[in-house]
């Protein structure tokens, strides 16, 4: 079953009269249920923009995006928000945690937006934190946690809604290799256990290598990794820094 479908999706930036930058150029993509899809590419290749388009955070100039059977841009803003709060988990490179909240409160935020009663929120948040190995840090303040722990809180927040799809934007980009590997393993394991789909954008070929399907993105264009290996691998290998 296809959970995410993109057809000829294009997104450009620029003002009239100025140079236009096409961040996502006529992208076609299908993501099947229960699979791990990786999108590789150097900084500025458009992979983060594509992820935001898939999350319904950015409107495409052209093309159609269907997620879990919903044509995203036929939904209202509130309906898109509800789709994210109930079916789509998002993991950010820089964690996206609110420093004024505790770890458990951060994890419980999507449930709060969905109107889940407080005691249930707390139970689900503690369970999610336990799953990522932070069962003892429920009441911890964010600035008391290490980078790896913060990203685990971010993953717990994505998992707490029992999502059908998780979109992860460079989740290991701010971590050292060891920590990054552990966090990614944690994320893949949790997604596999739930039978959910994971879309990971990364500039790291090692991380991408763990995916069921790999795509490469360059200058806004998306290609299957095998087809682009000859033209892009040398540049991908040399690319560094965040997307």
């Amino acid at each position, binding site marked *: 079953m296809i959970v995410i479908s993109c057809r000829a999706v294009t997104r450009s930036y620029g003002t009239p009269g100025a140079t236009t930058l096409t961040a996502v150029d006529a992208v076609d993509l299908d993501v099947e249920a229960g699979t791990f899809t990786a999108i590789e590419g150097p900084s500025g290749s458009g992979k983060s923009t594509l992820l935001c388009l898939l999350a319904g955070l950015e409107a495409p100039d052209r093309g159609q995006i269907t997620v879990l059977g919903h044509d995203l841009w036929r939904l209202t803003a509130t309906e898109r*928000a509800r789709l994210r709060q109930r079916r789509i988990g998002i993991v950010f490179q820089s964690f*996206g945690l609110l420093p004024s*909240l505790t770890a458990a409160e951060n994890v419980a935020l*999507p449930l709060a937006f969905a109107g889940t009663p407080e005691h249930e929120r707390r139970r689900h948040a503690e369970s999610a934190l336990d799953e990522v190995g932070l069962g003892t840090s429920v009441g911890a303040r964010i600035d008391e946690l290490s980078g790896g722990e913060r990203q685990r809180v971010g993953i717990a927040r994505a998992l707490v809604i029992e999502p059908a799809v998780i979109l992860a934007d460079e989740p290991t980009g701010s971590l050292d290799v060891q920590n990054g590997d552990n966090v990614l393993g944690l994320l893949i394991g949790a997604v596999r256990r739930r039978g959910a789909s994971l879309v990971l954008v990364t500039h790291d070929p090692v991380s991408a290598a763990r995916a069921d399907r790999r795509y490469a993105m360059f200058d806004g264009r998306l290609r299957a990794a095998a087809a682009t290996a000859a033209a892009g691998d040398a540049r991908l290998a040399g690319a560094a820094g965040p997307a």
Partner: protein
Amino acid sequence: MILRHSLRLVLREPRRSLAAIVGIAIAAALITSVLLFGAASGNTVTRRALADLPVDAQVIIANGGTAAAARSIVTADPAVRAVSDFQLAHFDSAATNKAGTATQTSVGVLIGIDAGYTSQTGLFGLSSGSLQPGQIAISRDLASNLGAVPGDTISFSLPGGATVALRVSGIVSIAGADLLLGPIDPAHRAAGANPPTNVAIMAAGDLASMVLPRIPTGAVATDPGTAGAAGRGPATPVFAPEPAVRMELHVRLDHAQLPGDPASAQLWLDSVRRRVERQGAGAFTWVDDASASLEPLGADLAWGQILFIFLALPGIMLALALSRLAADATADSTRRHAALLRARGAKRPELVAVFVGATVLTALGGSCIGAVIGAAAAVALFGTDLAAAGGAAAILAAIGVAVLLTTLLATAAALLPLRAQLREEIGSGRQELQRNRPPLWQRLGLDVVALVGGVVVYVVAGGAGLHPVLNAEGNPTVTLALTSFLAPLLFWLGGTLLLLRIVGFVLRRGGWLAASLRRPLGPGGDLAARSLVARAGAAARAIVVLALAVGFATSVLMFDATYRQQQRVDAELTLGADLKVTPTGQVASGQIAGLSGPGIAAVTPFVDRVVYVGPEAQDLLAIDTATLPAVAPLADSFFAGSGAAAAMAALRARPDAILVSSETAKDYSIVPGDRLRIRVPDATGTLRTVEFTMAGIALEFPTAPKDAFLVGNLAYVAAQTGNDRISFALARADGDVAAASAAVAARLGAGWQVADLSTTSARLANSITAVDLRSLVGLDVSFAIVIAAVGVALFLLAGLADRRRELATLIAIGAEPRQVRSTIAGEALVVGVAGIGTGLLTGGLVGLTLLQILAGVFDPPADLPAIPLTLTAAMTAAIIVSLLVALAVADRGLSRLSVVAALRER
């Protein structure tokens, strides 16, 4: 080079610059408009003081001089608009003999005027009858004293012993002519000598042919203080004797040439006097009545200056606070720009110089724009008065002061946070906002120090004792010492900082806040509370700006309402009650029952006689203590050492009881229980010595003049003098005063004059605060509303800038648009409720302090301040609407937030 970089920074960060400029411009506009209000008020006071003056100057022809020669000199002066002839002859006594009964009264004056004099000056209008050739029209007092009516003949005894008999053809009003009829000797005038009330008017030609030839050259007028003191012999005159005959020219000046400022106006009047007298070379003397009218304005203007201090200080505080809020709102872009310049190799001193330069340029730009807007608003509101008060020069001066003051203060306010912003990178800068360490002023306790300092200065300087004092010339003046400015400044500064400390303290303990906001606003409310706790310092500043704006408006509204309340009390005091009914003929105290009827709730008889305490003439107010309290307003503050009820009880306790003014008690060293011998006129006008017992001190009393007066029992005075004629009756309306006035006038018909409160209130609007206060209140409240909107908008926009990533994250993880919006609305709600609540409270306190310190503005002082509930509610509603506008601005900023761009920010 630095300047170029600074200018480039201002231009390349338009949002940063605009936020700062708007905040500073509002403060500059407020200060400029308040300064120009001061200038305009000075002019209004001058115009108002001279508007009702029928004659600006009296030219007294010297012995041997001629009116024609003087007229040619006077009319040639470019400042003179019109000149009228006026002749005055004193008489020693006047008598009638009707049906074998002789009635006599004491001194007075015969006036000779041209036919056009009344139409030109508005003086000596006929109340009844007419002025026939060879006959006279007499004042109501002369008619009352002699029982004379048109058709009777009055025999006048003239100085030098001759008499002249003149037939009465009408009754004339002498209202407004006190200054012209009184003595011209300066010392005599300064002592506030009572003008004659026995006055007869006749044609100038008739006076010249029928009266003047009978008065010997060089004769002098009888001193009224000695008149009627039969058997005692004349007292030694205190002042120079008045000539028995005065030949005068009455001059009206071109008021369009008059400068607006009272001090400049007096200089101009002096220059006119010197110019004309120089031309006259001793042939005449110029008596400057216009200057005399301007002199008492010194006290009004001094009070006005104190009022301005209170109105300008909040403006200065708001300038500081708004500039700081603007700095908060632009902190993020400042840090980013600093990081960019640092990356390009700029060293710290260069960085500081560029940002300081940009801050000064922004402050200067905002100040200039605001000052021009403030000047435009002031011109729209007070245009005519401003033009006369110096026009362009006054406006430029106000703009200059406002620009200088606002630029300095705004620069200082913006530089304080800039220091921290330049020190840190963006990430650590964000942490800086969340620091737990209190700012330096809190650690030093500057708020408490300023408040204690204010109290010390207030007590040491006798703040509560800032009342007008009489100067050597007998005019009320107020000396403004530096301490007059210092105490209010310290109060405002300390109060603002203390409010900042308290609000910050409460916000930082915000657990209750999250619970309170979660219920109405859901998770967005919870997040708003967390955000407020995290940004407690900035939130406290926004709340304080709002509180200052609301407090400022509330205190001004309260002051205005109290002033209007006291203006009505003043009118009631001057008139005596809702209605004052004066008979043109003789009416005994027992004959006023006819006044009662529809529209009238209560009536009381009232006698006002000029009596003599030693040589000093004073007004004796003889009242009926049984009926007066139900008719006339009697406040406790009218009486020293006792309330109104106690004072009336003291009068009732013994028939000969008398209340004296504090001045009389002090001059004669008398205390309650002491006996007083006072000369009171009987029915014939002859003074009789009557004994009284002092029962207390009256500071104010209905109908009483501002100087010395006495209050006694009407029945006792009537019995002792054999004269029970009332001067007038006072009445309280049973509902609408104007309707009651019309009903009484219709019921009584001719022979009575009815005056009511509404006409008196309009005539009394003579103080600086009465003049433009309504416009000023409107202006200040408008500014308060704009300041509230801009202050809260700046805070919300600063929050948006600070929380861009946080808000983008919330959207990404599924916050619905209304939930994101409610995080902003929650902040606005807390800032709005806290700001308006504390503002109303502090406004009330400031209003009370203002009323206490400015007690001298009110005559009489207010027992209780007036609370303008409707206006305050309307102002609060307008501020709530302005907050909704600010929220809409922030919401628009939120809707334009690029989630993708914000998520990429570090």
